[in-house]
């Protein structure tokens, strides 16, 4: 047993490929725990950032600067009464949030946090991600229908129409990025010999292809990669039903859209699924266009000095967070009522600073590199989501459909054809 556990440690593949069940389970728990924590953090960050966009304070009461608000919310949602409408289809009503949750968490099996830090590397990686995440539309439709009520049904119909339409444009953008992996092939991307000129669908393979070609696919064939990425970046917001494409849950028109009749824990499962899906599509974008786990300028700025400079980034990030926490401590009102909060925030800052110091230790910082850069890029996208929500007004439904079918799809097909032509010519 112990041999089985230690036998993986020297290996340079993912636990799924090595066939090591124990480490695969460990990875699954770490990834899923990490995603759940990220969802909670995102919940807090979204409320805070939105509030500051609108010159409000946001949550301030539970913990210093509302840091414990997600936990309070979770407890509230878990203890709330769970209502099932009497005319609802009980079984479908019960299973719909679970389908959304499973669909949005299952895609993390292939997300590459590093060359070996993925649960497994399927050779249909990106296809698997798109396919499984498209299953979540089933959950939305089921939730809307099972509630047996008007607003949820309309919300579900809107949502499924929207998700199905934007999936097409998204697919075109993804295929043009996959086409780029086949260039300068020569079997370089771990797909075996004798496959020269053949691209790859594997998430790890796609990132390695960007390294081999010495360019992020964002900048490949200059405007083309950029446009494809732009299409994906728009379509992914629509796919996850977020503002400005949040018509399925447009408050002013449909109360809460497809989850109007849900309450308590079940409703929180929808939220968890939505945020997990947001992180998942952001990691697709990072993998396909932004070089995945590689640090910026991985080919241009090589050498020991640059490696050292970039490996100090994770530590400095946490130290910067600690500094922000201490600025908060200093600015906290001096009234005795705030003493507990001040001490708590100082403790939080100390913990962040200690994490930062640990990340400076050479063995840690070498191992944490790829995970840090991947997570940092994904975090950029998560901030963009909040930014969109604070900036853009909601689309009307016919405008939404027009953008999807008459603008994004033709541009996507054009980019696909041009990419193919350039790939053959160059």
């Amino acid at each position, binding site marked *: 047993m112990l041999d089985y556990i230690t036998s993986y440690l020297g290996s340079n593949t993912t636990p799924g490929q*090595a066939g090591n069940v124990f480490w695969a389970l460990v990875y699954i728990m770490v990834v899923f725990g990490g995603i759940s924590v990220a969802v909670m953090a995102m919940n807090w960050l979204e409320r805070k950032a939105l509030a500051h966009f609108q010159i409000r304070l946001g949550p301030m009461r539970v913990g210093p600067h509302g840091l414990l608000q997600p936990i309070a919310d979770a407890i509230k949602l878990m203890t709330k009464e769970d209502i099932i409408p009497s005319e609802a*289809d009980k079984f479908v009503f019960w299973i719909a949030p679970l389908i959304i949750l499973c669909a949005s968490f299952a895609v993390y099996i292939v997300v590459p946090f590093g060359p070996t830090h993925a649960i497994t590397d399927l050779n249909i990686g990106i296809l698997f991600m798109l396919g499984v995440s*498209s299953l979540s539309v089933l959950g939305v439709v089921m939730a809307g*229908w099972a509630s047996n009520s008007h607003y949820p049904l309309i919300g579900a119909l809107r949502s499924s129409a929207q998700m199905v339409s934007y999936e097409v444009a998204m697919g075109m953008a993804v295929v043009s990025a996959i086409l780029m992996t086949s260039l300068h092939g020569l079997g370089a991307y771990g*797909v075996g010999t004798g*496959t020269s000129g053949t691209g790859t669908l594997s998430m790890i393979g796609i990132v390695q292809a960007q390294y081999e070609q010495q360019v992020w696919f964002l900048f490949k064939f200059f405007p083309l990669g950029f446009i494809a990425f732009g299409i994906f970046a728009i379509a992914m917001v629509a796919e996850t039903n977020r503002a400005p494409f949040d018509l399925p849950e447009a408050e002013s028109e449909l109360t809460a859209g497809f989850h109007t009749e849900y309450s308590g824990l079940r409703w929180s499962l929808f939220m968890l699924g939505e945020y997990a899906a947001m992180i998942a599509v952001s990691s697709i974008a990072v993998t396909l266009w932004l070089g995945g786990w590689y640090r910026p300028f991985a080919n241009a700025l090589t050498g020991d000095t640059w490696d050292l400079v970039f490996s100090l980034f994770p530590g400095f990030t946490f130290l910067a967070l600690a500094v922000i926490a201490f600025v908060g401590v200093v600015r906290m009102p001096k009234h005795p009522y705030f003493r507990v909060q001040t001490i708590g925030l100082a403790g939080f800052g100390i913990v962040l600073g200690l994490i930062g110091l640990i990340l400076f230790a050479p063995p840690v910082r070498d191992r944490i590199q790829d995970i840090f850069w991947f997570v940092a890029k994904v975090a950029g996208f998560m901030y963009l989501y909040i930014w969109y929500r604070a900036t853009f007004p909601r689309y009307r439904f016919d405008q939404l459909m027009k953008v999807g079918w008459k603008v994004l799809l033709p541009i996507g097909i054009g980019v696909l054809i041009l990419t193919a032509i350039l790939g053959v010519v160059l």
Partner: protein
Amino acid sequence: MQPIVQPGMQPVATTFFFYFLSGLTLLSGVLVITRKSPVHSALALIFGLLTQAGLYLMLYAPFVAGVQIILYAGGIMVLFLFVIMLVNLERSQKEEQFNKQWLIGLLAAIALGALFIIVYVKGKSFFPVGIPQPIESNNTQQIGVMLYGQYMFAFEIASLLLLVAIIGAVVMAKKRI
């Protein structure tokens, strides 16, 4: 093409998973025809299609499994559900679920069952048992190479057919173009 699995990789409880997935497929197939509510039938069908995707994975055909999920479970069945939810369910639930032609049904079932049994008993000579499984790590690439190399013509004919179907759908849906 000799390595059945990658070195160091053990197939996990293959027999168990085969019977598990096949059992679930059969169960959902039975549910599809016995459920009164069409929505429940459609959901059972989706579940059956997903378990089928699992069976494809076990046959080292990840590409077929992925396409099965995207096309059937993700695409076609969503449209199915879409339509079912918009039609009036009250009337269809009152209708007779099975028709009375049980004699013909029985004969057809016996004939199909007999065919399966004959294939199972005699089929060992037709279909050789020990087909070496293709290497999992690049068989998606091999599908691509074959589709765009050896079978280019057939592939393009099929895509032309699909184009005709798309144009036909547009013509039928839109009276004035």
